[in-house]
């Protein structure tokens, strides 16, 4: 079974290459569907396959850039990417990230930063999960009230509408974001991207997990546009990250390319699935992914207090992460296949009708 293993030229380790493809498919699906890089899922996976940690991060970022490019291309064709918003936010994200990264270095000198950061991350994830499910419950309530009153709810209506309050702030310059359908002060996306970038810098994460809900709940993007625009940002920041990590010699491009084979398939499945799953379907699945991420962090934190059980809890954390990747990927794939089948069948039926009427 030697042919199933490939020697990585830089890391010098033999890796089970079908594992890389499967991992690529899984994170490709989830990344394309939620609009995030998904490093919290890839890094433990690469580690399990035998990558040294230093290479796992760099390789993950390199593959993330390619995968996000594929997803952005597809979302762009669907009209899900607001490039103007993406470019404005990119500036705020980069500045915010640098400030966050510098701040964490300063905090490190004070000591005990790791625990604080993990707790902060947990609080943030808990808040995001609450926000998502509170929004879902509120929207359901609105729908029931409308049904009772004999009205129909607008198909773009949402539960939480914080963005409407933020849109009332009219500090010039005002901008019109056509794809997202938003007219607001330019300062809103700049400040939001600065804050999300700052948080990502402090937490040492890519930021898709924070930016996606911020785009929806604060800026007011429709879910599909939030996913596409976030991926556009992940693509550029991923390339930037890949450059810095590769320059430091921590990227295994061969592995990234093998992962991209799977990710190109996965990214297409995830992206096309957004065509068949409505915005709230994406939001609920995203909420579940956030809970999974939080559980994995809790499991990683337990050994800080019970070091004797480190192996068990580290393993459990990886199982949770990979289990969520597998379950969500399966759900998204099934929905995509069902939707595609219906679409193809409808197309065939309408073609048969047309030819029938011509005859």
């Amino acid at each position: 079974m030697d042919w199933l293993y490939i020697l990585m030229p830089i890391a010098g380790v033999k890796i089970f290459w079908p594992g890389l493809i499967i991992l690529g498919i899984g994170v490709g699906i989830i990344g394309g569907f939620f609009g995030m890089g998904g490093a919290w899922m890839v890094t433990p996976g690469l580690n399990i396959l035998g990558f040294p940690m230093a290479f796992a991060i760099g390789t993950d970022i390199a593959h993330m850039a390619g995968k996000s490019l594929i997803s952005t291309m597809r979302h762009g064709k669907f009209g899900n990417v607001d490039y103007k918003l993406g470019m404005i936010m990119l500036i705020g994200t980069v500045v915010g990230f640098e400030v966050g990264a510098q701040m964490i270095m300063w905090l490190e000198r004070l000591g005990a930063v790791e625990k604080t950061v993990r707790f902060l991350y947990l609080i943030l994830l808990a808040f995001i999960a609450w926000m998502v499910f509170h929004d879902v419950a509120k929207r359901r309530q609105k729908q029931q009230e409308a049904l009772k009153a004999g009205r129909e709810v607008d198909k773009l209506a949402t539960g939480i509408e914080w963005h409407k309050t933020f849109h009332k702030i009219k500090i010039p310059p005002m901008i019109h974001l056509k794809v997202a359908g938003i007219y607001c002060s330019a300062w809103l996306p700049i400040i939001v991207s600065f804050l999300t970038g700052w948080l990502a810098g402090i937490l040492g994460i890519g930021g898709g997990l924070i930016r996606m809900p911020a785009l929806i709940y604060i800026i007011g993007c429709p879910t599909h546009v939030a996913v596409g625009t976030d991926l556009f940002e992940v693509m550029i920041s991923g390339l930037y990250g890949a450059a810095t990590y590769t320059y430091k010699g921590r990227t295994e491009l061969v592995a990234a390319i093998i992962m991209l084979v799977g990710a190109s398939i996965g990214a297409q499945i995830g992206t096309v699935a957004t065509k068949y799953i409505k915005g709230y379907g994406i939001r609920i699945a995203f909420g579940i992914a956030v809970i999974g991420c939080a559980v994995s962090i809790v499991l990683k934190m337990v050994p800080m207090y019970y070091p004797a059980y480190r192996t068990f809890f580290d393993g459990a954390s990886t199982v949770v992460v990979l289990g969520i990747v597998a379950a969500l990927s399966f759900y998204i794939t099934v929905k995509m296949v069902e939707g595609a089948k219906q679409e193809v069948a409808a197309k065939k039926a309408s073609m048969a009708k047309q030819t029938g009427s011509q005859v």
Partner: protein
Amino acid sequence: MTKLWARIAGIAAMIFLSLPDGVFAAGGGDVAPIVIVADTRNLSGIMWWWAELYNESHLYFALVTVALIPIIGVIFGVLADIIMTHIGIDLKSRDLAEH
């Protein structure tokens, strides 16, 4: 004038590449401060060339990597497009709805 532009480009590249490690490095933490040299003894062909490039210059290695990633991404993306279109999925429109 060309020299001046070359210098400006060089300085810009240096600034770009020497920014903090953590930049957009999702979920990983710090990178260990170790120097890694690729072992080329068991490699041949393109793998050997790739590992040699890594050993010779991390800058060229980084530039080639960053150039290759988008190219490979576009190739795979276009390939997947062709397959999806062949299946009969409409890849140009979608219905924007929250529920």
